[in-house]
Structure formats: structure tokens, C-alpha cells
């Protein structure tokens, strides 16, 4: 679409790109992590975080400090930054930001529906919803009993509406159907996001498309791994795989037939990008899990996104890197609060 982005990009988006690069410089460094790992209590963690970009974000928290509170406050801070970017953005960056929030919206919808299965009050769940995925119709989600209900009554006006094409059914929403709905919505969302980036072309497509391809393949692998030993049939499993990745179409067919981890590994061995990842997975309970390996790869790709200028990928990459940082801090905090320090260094350093 807009070839030669270096001529036009800064007119509309230069300020925000500069801002996000400044924010990226505020991510925790290796030294920060070393300091955090040496903390004895969560109060120490709070004190150490005050010296970083986080500042006094925990100042208003009542005692006792819990890991959940730290996580909630970190999310709020990320949301404030994101909303600032979003409010100052112009098209097509605004649509890009909307696409980014859709994944959090899907997570919130599923959280609300699962909560209603467990007879939780809507207020209780709304407090724990991801702030980036907030939308006005959220409170009405729990009244829906089938996916068609959910679409027609609640979500038809939201950005999630186009992703409901494959999900419409009259099945009652129990745990299995909610899980299927979750994955199908996410699959449609990812494919739509991929198409948007590809149509935009230019550097954005060059950076975002490989990232989204990796996300699609990662979903396929993780869904397969977690489905071993469950009631999910192979045919159902295949309908959940996003098709915008490198595995499409042969890899996905093979993956749908896999019955254990080794068969999955053999599928991955056909792809030069994924073979080294699977080789890095440690056996048993000692080494890295597949999720860890995938998170590392995601961090690598996101850090590399900052090497190019004049594209929207920096915003996506910054948000994802910030999320990894939050995961790291929560992990370290949990190890400290449970006094189980053997694996405290399993975080993924970013800078």
C-alpha cells in the first residue's frame, strides 16, 4: 500500500514511534533482574521496583502485598501506556491497535463465561479482567447460553463480531464448548490480523507477518500438546489450528494425527525454524518446557523488531516484551513468596 514508508511514516506516527522506543529503553535490565532475584520478601521486590521505570506503582496497596496485586498493578500501568498510544494514533495505526486489543477481549469474554459456569458474580470477575480488553458490553456476556446467543445479543457491535463466522452454533456453553469457542475465536482473529498486516505491506508486513506466523504455529503446537489425554477428538483439534503459519497446510495435517510428544517433534523436525526449538526442550521435569522455549523465541523476534524503523511492529513488540517482563516479575515473586528458589532464574532476560 504505502511503499517508501520512510517518506510518510513520521508525519502521522513519528511521535508515537519515538515514544515507544523511549518506553522500550525503560524495560528491566539484567542487573535489575539480578537485584530482584536476591530479594527475600515481596516488600523487598516492591522497594527494588521503585528504582526502575515502575516507580511507586505499588504505593497505594494495602498490606499484605500479594503476587496477584503486583500483577494487577503492572497490568494497569501497561494499559495506561497503551491507551496513551492509542488515543494519539491515526489510521491505520488505530486499527492496528484495535487488532491488538482483540486478543485481550477474547480472553476476557472467556473468563466471564467460565466465571458464570462457576456461579461467580459479574463484579468479581470484571475486577480481574485484563484492562486492555475492556469493552462496554462485557457485563452482559454471562447471560448468553450458546455461541449464537453470545454473538447476536452481546458481541455483534464489538470488534470481535467478524471472528464469529466459524463459531456459531446452538451448543450449550459447557467447559468443552467454551474451550472450543476460545480457540476458534482466536484462530479467526489471528488470521484476520495477519491479513491486515499483509495487506498493509511495507516494513510492517515484513516484521509482523513472521511474528504472527510464529504465533499461529505456536498455538497449533500447544493445542496439540495439551490435547493429549483429553476428550478432544483429532477432527475437532484440527479445526482449532490457525492457518496463517508456516505449518499450513501439510504440517497441520500431520500435527492433527499426532498422538504423543515424539510424533509432534517429528512434525517439527521438517521445519528448519522449529527443529532447534524442539531440540532445546529438556526431558522430564528438569529442563525447559515447550512453552518456555516458545516464549524465548517470541522475545528474540520482538527484540529484533526494534532494529527496523517506520513500522507498526514496534508497538506490538513493545507490548509483548512488557508482558514477558511482567511474567518474569510474577515468576520471581512467586518463587520468593513460596520460598522455592531453585528455579528462580528461569525468567527470560530481555535486554
Amino acid at each position, binding site marked *: 500500500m504505502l511503499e517508501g514508508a520512510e517518506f510518510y511514516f513520521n508525519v502521522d506516527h513519528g511521535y508515537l514511534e519515538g515514544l515507544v522506543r523511549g518506553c522500550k529503553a525503560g524495560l528491566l535490565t539484567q542487573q535489575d533482574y539480578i537485584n530482584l532475584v536476591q530479594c527475600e520478601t515481596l516488600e523487598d521486590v516492591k522497594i527494588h521496583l521503585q528504582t526502575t521505570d515502575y516507580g511507586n506503582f505499588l504505593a497505594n496497596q494495602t498490606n499484605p502485598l500479594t503476587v496477584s496485586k503486583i500483577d494487577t498493578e503492572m497490568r494497569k500501568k501497561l494499559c495506561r501506556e497503551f491507551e496513551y498510544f492509542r488515543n494519539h494514533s491515526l489510521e491505520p495505526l488505530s486499527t492496528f491497535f484495535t487488532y491488538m486489543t482483540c486478543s485481550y477481549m477474547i*480472553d476476557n469474554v472467556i473468563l466471564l463465561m*467460565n466465571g458464570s459456569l462457576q456461579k461467580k458474580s459479574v463484579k*468479581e470477575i470484571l475486577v480481574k479482567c485484563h484492562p486492555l480488553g475492556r469493552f462496554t458490553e462485557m457485563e452482559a456476556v454471562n447471560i448468553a447460553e450458546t455461541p449464537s446467543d453470545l454473538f447476536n445479543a452481546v458481541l455483534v457491535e464489538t470488534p470481535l463480531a467478524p471472528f464469529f463466522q466459524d463459531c456459531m452454533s446452538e451448543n450449550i456453553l459447557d*467447559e468443552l464448548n467454551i474451550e472450543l469457542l476460545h480457540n476458534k475465536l482466536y484462530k479467526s482473529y489471528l488470521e484476520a490480523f495477519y491479513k491486515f498486516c499483509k495487506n498493509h505491506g511495507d516494513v510492517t508486513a515484513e516484521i509482523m507477518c513472521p511474528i504472527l506466523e510464529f504465533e499461529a504455529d505456536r498455538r497449533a503446537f500447544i493445542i496439540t*500438546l495439551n490435547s493429549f489425554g483429553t476428550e478432544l477428538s483429532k477432527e475437532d483439534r484440527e479445526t482449532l489450528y490457525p492457518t496463517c503459519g508456516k505449518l499450513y497446510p501439510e504440517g497441520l495435517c500431520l500435527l492433527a494425527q499426532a498422538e504423543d510428544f515424539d510424533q509432534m517433534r517429528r512434525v517439527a523436525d521438517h521445519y528448519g525454524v522449529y527443529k532447534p526449538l524442539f531440540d532445546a526442550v529438556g526431558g522430564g521435569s528438569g529442563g525447559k*518446557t515447550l512453552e518456555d522455549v516458545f516464549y524465548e523465541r517470541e522475545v528474540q523476534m520482538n527484540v529484533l523488531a526494534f532494529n527496523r524503523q517506520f513500522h507498526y511492529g514496534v508497538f506490538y513488540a513493545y507490548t509483548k516484551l512488557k508482558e514477558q517482563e511482567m511474567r518474569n516479575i510474577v515468576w520471581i515473586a512467586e518463587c520468593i513468596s*513460596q520460598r*522455592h528458589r531453585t528455579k528462580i532464574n528461569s525468567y527470560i532476560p530481555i535486554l
Partner: protein
Amino acid sequence: MAAPDLRAEVDSLLLQLLQDLEELEAKRAALNSRVEEGWFSLSKARYAMGAKSVGPLQYASRMEPQVCVYISEAQDGLQKFWLVRPSAQTPEEVGPREAALRRRKGLTGTPEPESFPALQDPLNWFGILVPHSLRQAQASFREGLQLAADMASLQIRIDWGRSQLRGLQEKLKQLEPESA
């Protein structure tokens, strides 16, 4: 009772008591490590799934127990603790079964013919496709449960053993001055 017999009995009781104590300590250490592993696996699951996906939002405030404790009395009057699964309701009890279905599905439709509400695996509260760490957590906690029941039985035995021992030692003291 003659003193030597009594002494032999005291000895064997003491040995049994010490053995039980050792077993209790071993089981306690195992329980602690299982519970610790369980909580740690939950943290790993939170890392993989998201911090709010494994927490108080996912379980109801009222739960049906998966495992019940059943107390039986052995011949020597000692109580033993067993872990049992509460048996599923028989099909003739239509009333409570319908109510249970209605609570779960929220519909006044016909109850499904194939299965009555089988005990739900709590793992499914977190979704169908859960990571391996969550399954590991469940396994650790289950093992811990079995250990807890064993420990309770052992503790009752130890208490009984101690009271027996005290009784026998009293008797011995009474006999000693006589034979002295």
C-alpha cells in the same frame, strides 16, 4: 502377669512405637514436599496460562468433594482413615439428579439420558486444554491426600501405643516392688 513377660511386651510395644514414629516423620516430610511441589507446579501453570487464569476465579465457592474420608474400626478398637470416592447417585433417585442437572446447565430442558452427573474433574475448571504443569500439580496434591490419610491413621496408632505403653509401665512398677 509375670515380670519378664511384661517386660518383653513393653519392649515390643516400644519398638513398634518407634517404628511408627519413624514412618510418621517420613510421611510428613513426603507430604510437605508434595504440597510444595503442587503449589510450585501451579505457579508454572500460571506462567504458561496467564496469572489470572489459575486462581480463585476458576473455582466455585461451593464444591462437591472428589474424595471423602471414611473411618473404620479395626479389631483392636483402633480407627483407620480411608479415602473413598463418593459413589455416584443411583438412577432411581430422579429428584436430586434433576436438580443437580438444572443447577449445572441452567435449563429446564430434559436431562441427558446417557450419564448422570459424573464427578467432574476439577482440572476442567481451568479449561479442557490445560498445560502439563497443572496436571502435575493435581497429581502432587492427590498423592499428598493419600499421605495425609495414612498420617492420621498412624497418629491414632501412636497415641494408642503410648497409652498402652504407659499402662504396661505402671503395671511393671507395681510388680517390681513385690518381686524386690
